[in-house]
């Protein structure tokens, strides 16, 4: 008989080892999936994890893409992780990401075609505000009416997607675009362009913001009283209340940070890599960021590494679909599997496994 015994404290060794173990298990299960699709599993794994970084033919293009894709993932996941740690479930980051992009782009396009250095910072601030306001809806409904924040934040994603479709063909449509949906190209307008800061690295302002967010979150969580409150509220809500933590303020705080960071990710995306507001510029970073947050064990440094790894699966997935004809959906399933394995092996952090008959305490 196998039984689980709760550890008095979470194992530090396993806390580091479980993400690695989960990645290994996902690679094994993913290989089986690729084999079932009739593809060579070794070639598939190699194309996803190795070729984007080291293949002489593709690395030149895909290495910079690593930062381009990891930037928004890390930015969003860092904010989400603060909430998840406190037991505040913002799962509508995708909507906040879209609203940040819309608000930021609208602020910039209102001034088109002026050329001025203040425009880009203004758009960034508007983007953060857009995400923040969208996140305040579930937060305030939660604190005022005790409405389930999980459902509201998620349902608002669909509202945001419809708003995006509406502005892409309406308010923000490019008047010189010949009637096609989509805004003016923000990456080609000097005042709003979020260009590469160092050529061929993929480093743009969004990546800089992501790194700052990671440092900020680390300091907040480990060197600041708010961080103690966040961790306490997540682990022992009742104890937290006795310690003077105001649960409502914590909900608003976590949603505000995660919403603003998601909004930032959105505006950096439409001014840089995506280039314009279009009906489908959002590619699900807000949802993948949830996986990134857990893969990074809700720790800012872990999220930095997890974001890079997840970006690699995106780029490698594109390469695998191009080279080996592996469907893009397989990569999505692959990323979902990673979260499953992560959650499964996490039991090792909190419980030790005993073989033999159960002892009665």
């Amino acid at each position, binding site marked *: 008989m196998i039984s689980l015994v*709760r550890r008095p404290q979470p194992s530090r060794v396993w806390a580091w080892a479980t993400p690695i173990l989960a990645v290994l298990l996902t690679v094994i299960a993913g290989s089986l999936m690729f084999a079932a699709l009739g593809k060579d599993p070794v070639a598939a794994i190699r194309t996803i994890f190795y070729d984007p970084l080291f293949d002489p033919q593709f690395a030149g293009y895909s290495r910079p893409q690593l930062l381009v894709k990891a930037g928004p993932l890390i930015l969003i996941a860092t904010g989400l992780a603060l909430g998840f740690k406190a037991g505040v479930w913002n799962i509508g980051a995708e909507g906040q990401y879209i609203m940040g992009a819309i608000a930021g782009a609208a602020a910039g396009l209102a001034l088109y075609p002026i050329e001025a250095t203040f425009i880009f910072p203004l758009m960034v601030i508007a983007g953060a505000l857009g995400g923040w306001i969208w996140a305040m809806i579930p937060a305030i409904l939660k604190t005022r009416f005790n409405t389930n924040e999980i459902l509201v934040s998620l*349902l608002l994603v669909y*509202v945001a997607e419809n708003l995006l479709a509406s502005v892409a063909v309406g308010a923000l449509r490019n008047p010189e675009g010949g009637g096609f949906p989509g805004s003016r190209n923000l990456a080609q307008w000097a005042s709003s362009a979020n260009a590469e800061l160092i050529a061929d690295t993929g480093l743009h302002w969004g990546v800089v913001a992501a790194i700052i967010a990671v440092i900020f979150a680390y300091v907040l969580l480990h060197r600041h009283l708010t961080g103690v409150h966040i961790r306490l509220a997540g682990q022992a809500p009742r104890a937290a209340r006795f310690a003077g933590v105001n649960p409502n303020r914590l909900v608003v705080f976590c949603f505000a940070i995660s919403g603003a960071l998601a909004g930032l990710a959105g505006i950096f995306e439409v001014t840089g890599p995506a280039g314009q507001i279009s009906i489908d510029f959002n590619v699900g970073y807000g949802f993948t960021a949830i996986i990134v947050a857990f893969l990074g064990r809700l720790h800012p440094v872990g999220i930095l590494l997890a974001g890079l790894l997840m970006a690699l699966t995106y780029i490698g997935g594109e390469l695998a679909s191009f080279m080996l004809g592996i*469907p893009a959906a397989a990569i999505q399933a692959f990323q979902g*599997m990673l979260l499953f394995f992560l959650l*499964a092996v996490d*039991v090792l952090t909190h419980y030790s496994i005993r073989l033999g008959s159960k002892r009665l305490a």
Partner: protein
Amino acid sequence: MDLSAISPALLLASLMIGATPLLLAALGELVVERAGVLNLGVEGMMILGAICGFAMAVETGSPPLGFLAGAVGGALLSLVFAVLTQIFLANQVATGLALTLFGLGLSSLLGQGYVGIKPPSTARLDLGPLSDIPLLGRAFFSHDWMVYLSLFLTLATWFFLSRTRAGLKLRAIGENHEAAHALGLHVVAIRFAAIAFGGAMAGLGGAYLSLVRVPQWTEGMTAGAGWIALAIVVFASWRPGRVLLGAYLFGGVTVLQLNLQAAGSALPVEYLSMSPYVVTILVLVLISARRSRGTAAPASLGKPFHAVS
């Protein structure tokens, strides 16, 4: 806008069709939550059920087999959730989200060859003279058999939960799993069964979407129906009868906005399309504001259970 183009009988008829997937998925989730488990993966199980059901119905030409496959697909995915949360004691919220993300990916992978195909049509239930009643016949008595099965399942779920011994055990586990365990009930086993039932019902709802409601397979076709089903359970205060009411209400909003789109409403299409989600949020707020004194949720909902002895 030409409102006269909307016939009340047809509107009621399509309301029943539109509400059925929500009703099935919400009933399943209701049983899961009454057992004290919060499975947020309804959307993922629904969409997997949609493609499993669609593929099976297309391959065999038999819609009943398709519905069966949809239920099996949803149940299999829900068992992943059951293993992770009940055996590996993983966080239920995170696992439910994982289920949705994985389900969306897996379903579009499975559905690659099925885009743009028409499924075999599901048989209408012959209700004889009832179908010939003017207006009412067209609205209520000329549907496929799944609509009536879903109504029957509502009744059966109510009967099971409130009138049977097994239902009492399930509710006891949902209210206080420690006490239920001390009484000798098999908490994990019963929760496994509830989760599998919830998965099968979500899969059935998904299959109804792809086989009858749309009827076609497109990626991400559930478009939040699973989340609305979760909201319906909250709306219904965890009671089967009110789930029926909630599903028909939300189904009605969806159908009405589609009809308004077709009738050429002055409101832009995007605003009509977002209305079911906005209405869901508003209803959730009203319900939670009214219930500020206490909650009707099962007391052990979402809490992990680890038997020490």
